[in-house]
């Protein structure tokens, strides 16, 4: 199997994160935060369950014809308005899970539901923000944001107005006429976010969106995302391999195992918002999750070396 540099880097980052976690491990006992009841926002809605993932498995056939089990027997409910983070080593099927919810893939077994409707294809109620962004280079920033609106048949003035509103929301109003190649990595990320938000989906699915960014830009985008989420009340499923990022953002963190991906742990994060990634409590909980994930990461790293 061919491994990209990006994936190799990911492994290196993991190992680094692990060793720091070990050095800083507290001598005294660490108490896991008690699980908290569902957030108030979810109690507001009639049914607290926005997304239901019911015993879902997904396999792929790889290049040499053998079957790879990416996800196995995943059962998971996502509450309305919840910010759910999914962490796990590379190759644990995190992205596959998002693509299943987005309807871009169909499960090998099991069912997925959103608002009591079975997911059978893409829908504008669930928008995914890809790791590779997929911004269209032939359109400028505003036209990219307008894309989903144009497909919905919105008239030009309304479309432009809404696109400008969302570009403002991500602080890119003055770059609406720029083409994608003229924007920096963080700006592209924000255009992609605005494009997803402009469709006004109930569910925002984010696939390692901030991986390629420098730390400052990423922190800034964390703050913006938290602000926008608080304002819109959307349900967010956020996939990352960065445990601290998951704890900083999520109401709940789900850990997936490596190949096949199974849910091995679910942890409520009841820290007050707004949070910061450098908060000691965030670091503390992240360390806890990392220790739990350690065995899975080892497996992932060993598999990567085997393939080389």
């Amino acid at each position, binding site marked *: 199997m061919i491994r990209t540099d990006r994936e190799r880097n990911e492994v290196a980052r993991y190992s680094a994160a692990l060793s720091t976690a070990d050095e800083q491990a507290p001598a005294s006992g660490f108490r896991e935060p008690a699980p908290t009841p569902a957030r108030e926002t979810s109690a507001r809605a009639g049914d607290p369950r926005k997304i239901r993932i019911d015993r879902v498995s997904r396999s792929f056939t790889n290049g040499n014809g053998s079957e790879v089990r990416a996800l196995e027997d995943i059962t998971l409910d996502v509450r309305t308005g919840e910010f759910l983070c999914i962490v796990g080593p590379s190759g644990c099927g995190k992205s596959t899970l998002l693509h299943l919810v*987005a309807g*871009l893939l169909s499960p090998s077994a099991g069912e997925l539901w959103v608002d009591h409707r079975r997911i059978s294809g*893409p*829908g*504008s109620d669930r*928008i*995914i923000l*890809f790791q*590779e*962004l*997929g*911004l*269209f*280079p*032939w*359109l*400028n920033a505003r036209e990219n944001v307008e*894309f*989903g609106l*144009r*497909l*919905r048949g919105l008239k030009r003035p309304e479309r432009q107005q809404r696109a400008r509103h969302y570009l403002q929301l991500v602080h890119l109003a003055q770059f609406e006429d720029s*083409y994608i*190649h*003229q924007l920096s990595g963080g700006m592209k990320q924000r255009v992609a976010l605005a*494009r997803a938000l402009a*469709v006004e989906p109930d569910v925002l699915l984010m696939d390692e969106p901030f991986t390629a960014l420098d730390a400052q830009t990423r922190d800034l985008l964390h703050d913006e995302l938290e602000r926008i989420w608080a304002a819109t009340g959307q349900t967010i499923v956020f996939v990352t391999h960065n445990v601290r990022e998951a704890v900083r953002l999520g109401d709940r963190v789900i850990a997936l195992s490596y190949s096949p991906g199974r849910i091995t742990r679910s942890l409520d994060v009841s820290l007050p918002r707004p949070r910061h990634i450098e908060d000691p409590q965030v670091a503390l909980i992240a360390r806890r999750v990392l220790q739990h994930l350690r065995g899975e990461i080892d497996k992932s790293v060993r598999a990567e070396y085997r393939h080389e």
Partner: protein
Amino acid sequence: MNKIVRQFGFYVALIGLWQIVAMLKIWKPYLFPTPWNVVEALRAGFADHTFWTGMAVSMKRMLIGYLLSCVMGIVLGIVLAQSRFLAETLGRLVVSIQSLPSVCWLPVAILWFGLTEKAIIFVVVIGSLLAVAIAVETGLRNVPRIYLMAGRNLGATRVDLLLHVFLPASLPHLMAGLKQGWAFAWRSLITGEMIFVSLGLGQLLTTGRDLNDINQVVAVMLLIVAIGALADGLLFRSVERIIEKKWGLATTNA
């Protein structure tokens, strides 16, 4: 400005060299004309309207043939990109047929359509159609999958995807194909006109040879080059600039 000065200087030097070679009289004047003889031939040709007529007739055929081949080539390219079966069967056949010089179709065209406009336009169409189709197919197949997923994710139907994702995404390829198609069409036209007498610039070349008039032959050759360069400069360069501006220089050749 500097670039224009350099180019102007180059052509002045080239014509100067030509004049010197002609004055050395290495070849007889009826085999190697001076620049002035050619200018004189151009003037005479435009004065008695033969060049104007030739250009008008050729351009009309070119426009009809080229537009037809663009429309048909784009449609054929889209069809070929739709299924692997079609690409492996029809697509392979198209690539093989493209190796046939378009003038080889002239006998068939004359048998089918007689010595008519249709025959010459057929040769022009067949000359560029396949190049356009292949470029469109390649362009569509090389659209990164992420654009397709992003489009579906934002609610695009199959038709939306084709019109708003696949076609714009393959525009750099498409433009390269249309440009190549134009060059092929132009060559096919002139070749066809030379063989099958029917006004047009190609025929003027043949007449020049029949009359042993090297001045006219070179003058018409210059006209053919000038029209080709003009089309390239006006039509394609401007579109290419737009693509460069949008996509960025780095991705234009991707």
